[in-house]
């Protein structure tokens, strides 16, 4: 048995296409194994659909490796959190008068990228219920200082620096007095806080990043009674424009997560659907051909009914009436397909096989019908079935993606199809987020290619009529 298998593998590997197919499928399987072993799928679904987990991730960021190929380096995300002891974070207490203190948080960071950040958010945390007065100062390279705002802090507050219109007004007025004119475009806070303040800032085409050391100071005024008790903390997030290996989507989620955990789902969906449907069809066809008469009639009429039923509309209808998960979707797909056209094809094959001498001989020595079906008829067509199974896996992987794109099935599921659906809904191509569409598409195509290469080669080997001379 093992000897036969190795001989078969050797024959298979003569074909380079099979080798490529096997490499692709093996890497997908390894990726899937890594995924399901490290974090269970349920946890990924919970993580994928939460909002808090992703709040420090940039929105619609491209993959980081883009920077290798471009001249203009896009910014990475910079996160500075005063609750952590890190370089560039400094927390001090300054006495200004008797009984009055300032808790000063100083963030220092180097900004060396060629593009402006996508967003800036400062989150402030305090543990007192009393109001605390805070003041935020932004210092650009060259000691250009701006007071961003004074906030009355109670508990938690998030300060969306990027949308501070008041600061923008002050900044524009300042520019007019300094350079004599206003910029000819809508200057955003992100640009204002990071641009070089010379005439280049006046035009969108020439505006440049002022590279160097930036400092952000958060001052909180606290009374003597709170000294030692009051905790004021801040987290500065300067969102970049690139993230990770796969980038992020409109909800700041790391696409790599969906792409990795989508692999086991795609493989499981494709393999389970393909194997179950093919074997079920084969079994039904064998029963139909073997018993004949009225059973054959009934099975063939049912098959014809199922063949004319519109597959997609029924699936859509079911998904609108019932809340279905990806696994119930799989079950529905299988149920709708087991009486498919395969039943007709396999029945035609079985009708021929039925007349083979060894089956007549088996009838003669009284072998039971079920044994004839399972041990005599089905093994005879297995060689032609195996390539069919392998070749139809991508059909079902694609089907899952198509259904997700049509909005069928579990909206919380983490699949390649869901990523595509999000991208399509957010008009990713129109907005230029090509990576968002291309990444899941390439994975889908690779899967299809892997199974197609292997399936076609298996077909050549197992159906020798097709073998090349």
């Amino acid at each position, binding site marked *: 048995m093992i000897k036969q298998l190795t001989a078969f593998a050797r024959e298979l590997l003569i074909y380079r296409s099979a080798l490529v197919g096997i490499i692709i499928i093996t890497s997908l399987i390894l990726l899937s194994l890594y995924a399901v072993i490290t974090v269970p799928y349920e946890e990924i679904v919970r993580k994928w659909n939460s909002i808090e987990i992703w709040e420090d991730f940039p929105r619609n960021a491209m993959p980081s490796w883009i920077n290798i190929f471009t001249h203009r380096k896009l910014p990475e995300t910079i996160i500075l959190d005063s609750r952590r002891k890190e370089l560039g974070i400094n927390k001090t207490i300054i006495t200004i008068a008797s009984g009055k203190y300032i808790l000063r948080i100083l963030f220092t960071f180097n900004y060396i990228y060629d593009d402006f950040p996508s967003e800036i958010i400062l989150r402030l945390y305090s543990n007192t219920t009393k109001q605390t007065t805070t003041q935020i100062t932004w210092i650009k390279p060259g000691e250009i200082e701006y007071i961003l705002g004074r906030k009355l802090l109670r508990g938690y507050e998030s300060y969306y620096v990027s949308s501070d219109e008041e600061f923008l007004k002050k900044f524009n007025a300042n520019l007019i007095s300094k350079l004599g004119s206003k910029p000819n475009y809508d200057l955003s806070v992100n640009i204002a806080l990071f641009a070089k303040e010379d005439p280049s800032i006046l035009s969108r085409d020439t505006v440049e990043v002022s590279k160097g050391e930036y400092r952000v100071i958060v001052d909180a005024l606290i009374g003597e009674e709170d000294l030692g008790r009051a905790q004021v903390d801040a987290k500065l997030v300067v969102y970049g424009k690139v993230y990770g290996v796969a980038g992020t989507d409109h909800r700041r989620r790391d696409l790599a997560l969906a792409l990795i955990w989508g692999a086991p789902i795609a493989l499981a969906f494709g393999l389970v659907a393909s194997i179950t449907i093919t074997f079920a069809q084969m079994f039904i066809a064998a029963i139909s051909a073997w018993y004949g008469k009225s059973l054959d009639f009934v099975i063939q009429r049912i098959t014809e009914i199922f063949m004319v039923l519109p597959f997609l509309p029924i699936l859509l209808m079911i998904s609108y009436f019932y809340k279905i998960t990806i696994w119930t979707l799989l079950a529905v797909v299988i149920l709708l397909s087991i009486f498919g056209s395969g039943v007709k094809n396999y029945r035609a094959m079985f009708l021929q096989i039925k007349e083979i001498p060894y089956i007549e001989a088996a009838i*003669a*020595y009284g*072998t039971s019908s079920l044994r004839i079906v399972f041990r005599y008829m089905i093994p005879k067509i297995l060689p032609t079935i195996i390539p069919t199974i392998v070749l139809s896996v991508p059909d079902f992987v694609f089907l899952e993606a198509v259904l997700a794109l049509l909005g069928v099935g579990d909206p919380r599921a983490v699949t390649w199809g869901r990523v595509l659906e999000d991208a399509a809904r957010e008009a990713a191509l129109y907005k230029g987020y090509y990576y968002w569409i291309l990444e899941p598409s390439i994975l889908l195509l690779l899967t299809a290619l892997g199974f197609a290469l292997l399936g076609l080669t298996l077909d050549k080997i197992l159906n020798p009529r097709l073998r090349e001379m």
Partner: protein
Amino acid sequence: MKTILNIKDLYLYYRVRAGLVKAVDGVSLDLYNDESLAVLGESGSGKSSFARAILRLLPKNVYRFEGSIYIDGEDVMKLSDDEFNDRIRWSKISMVPQASMNALNPVIKIGEQLAEPLVIHRNMNKSDALERAREMLKFVGIPQEFVDRYPFELSGGMRQRVVIAMALITQPSIVILDEPTSALDVLTQANIMNLLKKIKIDRKVSYVFITHDIALSSEISDRIAVMYAGQIVEYNYADKFYKEPQHPYSQLLLSSVPTLREDKKIKFIPGEPPSLLSPPPGCRFHPRCPYAMDICRREEPPILYMDGHSYVRCWLYAKR
């Protein structure tokens, strides 16, 4: 002597789109214990249908299946299909099917396949059945370790032996051999024939040997039945038959056998075997018969007994 197989007025008609195929049309014969019978006939004369009718292996389009068949004194036509399968088929009468080189399932090992009739008909457990299968393989001259081989690893002759072993494993008293050597070369054929002879003596089985090969039929048969268009036209003792065939068809058949040394012109029978769909009226052989008379064209000849059990269906012998 005891009759082991007694068939009277057996009919087997098939319905096809063009009409009725009268494959077996009123066949009667007796076969005694320890005797073997050869059923001779051209292709399409109904001899395979006759074999299948005895074993009740009927296709779905059977139109008429009647007559009486006694196997070992038991009227098997009264049995239901299940009873027949349980008590008669393979227990009392088994078969080496046509094209038997292909009669083995390529995905089941020889041993398991050989043991299958025992598991089905003798309710044996698998290991005992396999043990019997080994003995049987040895008996037909195949090394015992072949139980673990698959059919494709065996030569044609070996596969034929396995199929013969399979027919014998339940120790039936009658074995129907449906052209068992037709696909084999002459040497293998000789080998198999010798095996069959040995089995006949050792195991005391009766053969019903279906063949179109007159030379082979002379090897192991005590009785000859010549089939023509669904009927037995002559039923005779083998030694008498070869010396002095009675029916004109038998005579022509024997003279059409090529001989090795003699420079004899091989005769052939003019015309074609009649269609079983619409056999000619009267005697079915009359269009090809050199002695055809008026009555042959009008009336079907009766069965004319020559002595106790031999008979001929020919008007030539009626007037005597």
